[in-house]
């Protein structure tokens, strides 16, 4: 059975593969309990919730400041997974292309220009590269 399709990590993305608890109401991917967004009432994955709510991260000015309305951490921020995924979404959208070192490449993350180890994967997610297991 296929595991959770969400990718963990911030600087580098990796597979989660935990047991699926539910499917995301927005993207339809199978998601584990950790990657379901509490803020959405566990109806969306953290990625979809972040895409709807994550702020666009602003670059830091030369003096280290960011306008108050665009600061990364607002007063009372929960700093939970919802916040981290929201921040991650904003950070990726501002130009950071995360490296992915898992084995289940997913088109879901194409919008982030993910740099993958698995460039040989085709659209169906099947590895055409040499090595690995062949058909038996």
């Amino acid at each position, binding site marked *: 059975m296929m595991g959770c399709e969400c990718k963990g*990590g911030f600087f580098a993305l990796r597979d989660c593969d935990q047991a699926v608890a539910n499917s995301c109401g927005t993207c339809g991917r199978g998601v584990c309990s950790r990657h379901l967004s509490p803020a959405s009432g566990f109806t969306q994955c953290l990625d979809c919730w972040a895409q709807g709510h994550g702020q666009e991260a602003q670059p830091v000015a*030369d003096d*280290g400041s960011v306008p108050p309305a665009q600061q990364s951490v607002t007063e009372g921020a929960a700093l939970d997974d919802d916040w981290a995924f929201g921040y991650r979404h904003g950070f990726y959208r501002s130009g950071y292309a995360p490296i992915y070192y898992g084995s289940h490449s997913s088109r879901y993350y194409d919008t982030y220009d993910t740099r993958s180890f698995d460039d040989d994967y085709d659209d169906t997610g099947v590895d055409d590269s040499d090595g690995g297991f062949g058909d038996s």
Partner: protein
Amino acid sequence: MNKALAALKALTPEQKSILKEKRIDGSYTPQDAIALLKPVGEFDRLNDKARTGIGCWSAVFFVLGVVALIVTGNGVLPWFLGIPIAIGLFGMFVYFLVTVIRLSKSDLSNNFRQIALPFLAILKEDMEKGEAMQLKLDLSSATHDSKKTGQGDAYALGAYHKVIDHFYRDAWFEGSAWLADGSSVSWSIVEDITESKRTKRNARGKYKTKTKYRKICNLAVDVTLPHKEYSVAGGQAAIDAKVKIKNGDKRTTVRLSRKVKIKANEPWDVRALVELVAEAFRRARPAVAAGGAA
């Protein structure tokens, strides 16, 4: 005020000890660190918010107490009414004053909840569950006496006839962590703060003193990337940072540093630190092409 006091009461003995010592030094999993520190951060937020209000109310009760005494002294209010009212108002003044002093003693540097906690929450995403990180935090005020490194001679500056600069060094945050991909990150933040006390005489002959701050924050990050997973590219940094790359037998160490200059004694945006770590990973390429990984 009640929310701040309730949040203080709800803290565990370990969390209260952090508020008292204003130091954290040890090995924690990010989950444990956040579970331990988040309620402390929430109390600090409520504390900051409450203290301003309590200070104002304290002043109001004092003034009303004095007014009640004057009015009673002038016979406008009978003494059996005026004296208890004045005592009540002064009582409230003392209670609020004691509360604000008590809360002030528990105040933590805003760097804690604006930089340290968010950085831990981000780092948590890249760590295996249960993996511990080394953490050293100094949450006392950046201008605490123990952090003073010197004081300049008095000089004149424009309208200010006397300016004295006080210098502080605040090495408040360092740590290291192993990430799930086999990389390691270590970081250190040292802030050099200049507190400038400027005195001038205004048109009415009164002396006024202003305190201004400027600080230079030195952010340093080391990221070691395993050859097994990554090859590392050289070249210019995409952000304003110095980069040094050192190749080892099994790992490449990317050493990054940047300076953030601020004209206030306020926290900078955590993004300045996140960008520094990201710069190391931006240089990483999958080692597949070199025949290493996957």
